């Protein structure tokens, strides 16, 4: 029996694959055939909310964690879009030139200006709310929605740091979207938003999968890419206990940064950079009690974005950090001072290190393994200085006391294991996310990030995928 043939096979259905598919379908011929292999099930939003306790932690059995930290993600149709908090800052222009500007990490093989158009497109697809006239990034177009409302403490920080503190751009809508998503009502449980307000692949891009050109196979786990010489010919996958094979003219791996390199290694496409450099940002939560200043009245759960310790020359010595200010529905248990508290999160970049990596499984246990020895000294220098940083940053506020917690287990932003670059000896894919040797194979998603800037990576992942699809047709 002949295996079915497709113009495009995509592995995964999260942001990386779905954004690629979005742009691909705009350019593809009417009779194109696309196969999407998704190892998870399609779990409707209502089901996810009702079964939220079961869903949490389910991913842990899909890999072997040999790390002192966790790696959080979601295995289901739409992947991480089901559980993300919809924070969508862009990376700063300097994030693409980390090595040139600061002598650390690496430069990206493309710059902010080349991605700007695709940032705009991704923001339109997600109907992002943000501060168009007062943004830390150069913008060619306004955000689709007006910004959220800052909380009372945010307003103080904004007055003190007019060029370093902004309303957070987010796919938690300020008002009901054209596609019918309700405005965010700051319930603070975005990982299972009860009103399905935040953007997800399920509520925002599902129609792609209804396109007659697209066939999706659920509970279908990609095993290997079949490669003949420098050409990928198809994907072997497991579904319902049976091995299957689909032939494809173009293959895109849009799994996360644990599974993309694992698939490459299992397919014989290993090399010095494959699986190497497993990295995540490091985040630290900070609780503050205030003296005489109330914190309330924001219109979403994360209202502010502080860039006070993000750009600048300190990046030569220690990691940049992005600050999120939270607007949780909680009060302080002190009579008359109910609102005199605030919660923040400092998110620091980290550097890729060769010792941290994804390893292939074996015949006995084919699951990928993570080997993460430690965070970089560069990131730890920022963490070690956090006491001082917090004091400086919060100096405009009447701070009573501060509690700095231990670094969070995972930021759910797994990056850096099949990076983009110009040199095939040190990178896996080129600036268009095409594999250096196998030119009809793309490796999409966070695995391509050569650095792990403080900005949440989803918008950049999306912009890169949109760009990769358009470049493919352009060339």
């Amino acid at each position, binding site marked *: 029996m002949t295996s079915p043939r497709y113009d495009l096979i995509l592995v995964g259905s999260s942001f990386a694959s779905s954004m690629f598919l979005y742009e691909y379908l705009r350019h593809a011929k009417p009779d194109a055939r696309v196969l999407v292999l998704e190892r998870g099930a399609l779990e409707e939003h209502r089901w996810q909310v009702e079964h939220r306790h079961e869903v949490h932690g389910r991913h842990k059995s899909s890999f072997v964690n040999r790390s002192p930290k966790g790696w959080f993600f979601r295995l289901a149709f739409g992947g991480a879009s089901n559980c993300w908090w919809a924070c969508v800052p862009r990376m700063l222009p300097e994030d693409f030139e980390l090595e040139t500007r600061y002598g650390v990490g690496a430069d990206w093989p493309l710059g902010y200006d080349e991605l700007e158009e695709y940032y705009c497109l991704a923001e339109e697809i997600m109907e992002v709310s943000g501060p168009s006239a007062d943004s830390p990034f150069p913008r060619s177009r306004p955000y689709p929605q007006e910004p959220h409302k800052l909380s009372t403490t945010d307003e103080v920080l904004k007055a003190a740091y007019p060029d370093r503190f902004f309303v957070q751009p987010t796919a938690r809508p300020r008002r009901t979207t054209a596609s019918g998503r309700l405005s965010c*009502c700051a319930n603070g*449980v975005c990982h*299972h938003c009860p009103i399905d307000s935040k953007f997800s692949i399920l509520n925002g891009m599902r129609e792609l999968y209804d396109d007659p050109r697209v066939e999706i196979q659920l509970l279908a786990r990609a095993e290997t890419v079949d490669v003949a010489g420098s050409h990928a010919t198809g994907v072997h996958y497991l579904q319902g206990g049976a091995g299957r094979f689909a032939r494809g003219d173009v293959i895109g791996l849009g799994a996360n940064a644990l599974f993309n390199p694992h698939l490459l290694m299992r397919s014989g496409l290993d090399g010095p950079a494959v699986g190497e450099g497993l990295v995540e940002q490091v985040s630290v939560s900070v609780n503050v009690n205030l003296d005489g200043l109330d914190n309330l009245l924001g219109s979403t759960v994360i209202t502010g974005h502080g860039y006070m310790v993000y750009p600048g020359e300190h990046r030569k010595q220690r990691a940049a950090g992005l600050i999120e200010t939270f607007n949780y529905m909680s009060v302080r248990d002190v009579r008359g001072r*109910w609102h005199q508290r605030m919660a923040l999160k400092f998110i620091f970049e980290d550097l890729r290190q060769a010792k941290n990596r994804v390893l292939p499984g074996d015949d006995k246990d084919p699951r990928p393994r993570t080997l993460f020895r430690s965070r970089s000294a560069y990131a730890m220098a920022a963490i070690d200085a956090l006491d001082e940083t917090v004091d400086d940053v919060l100096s405009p506020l009447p701070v009573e006391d501060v509690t700095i917690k231990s670094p969070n287990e995972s930021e759910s932003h797994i990056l850096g294991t099949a990076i983009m670059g110009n040199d095939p000896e040190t990178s896996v894919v080129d600036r268009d996310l095409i594999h250096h040797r196998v030119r009809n194979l793309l490796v999409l998603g966070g695995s391509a990030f050569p650095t792990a800037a403080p900005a949440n990576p989803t918008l950049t992942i999306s912009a890169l995928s949109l760009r990769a699809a358009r470049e493919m047709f352009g060339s």
Partner: protein
Amino acid sequence: MSMRMTRRRFLEGTLALVCVGGGYVFWNRRQRLRKQIREHFSYLQLERGAVRSFLRDYEQANGLGSAQTAGHSGLARKFLLSTDFFHFDPDESRTIRYSRLADPFVNPCYNPLASFR
């Protein structure tokens, strides 16, 4: 006519005692919890039945007995958020009424601390 203690009657009697005893312990703990919350906010005028309604809704959402294992301070704060105390400028002289459970999975868009205008 004499009642003979059969094995069956003995087991039924024991079961009944356990049920009554367990029910009493549960009721007693619930009473204590109500009292603790009322005492925690002794400086507020709580409407009669407010704490009872809160505990009922809390356990309906989180499971029977869940309030008894929740931390005292957290439970007290959740209670206050579930009243109309924050609907206006917090006013300790006003009688505080139970509004609805401050739980995003029960009342998704109830957040008296946020502002959307």
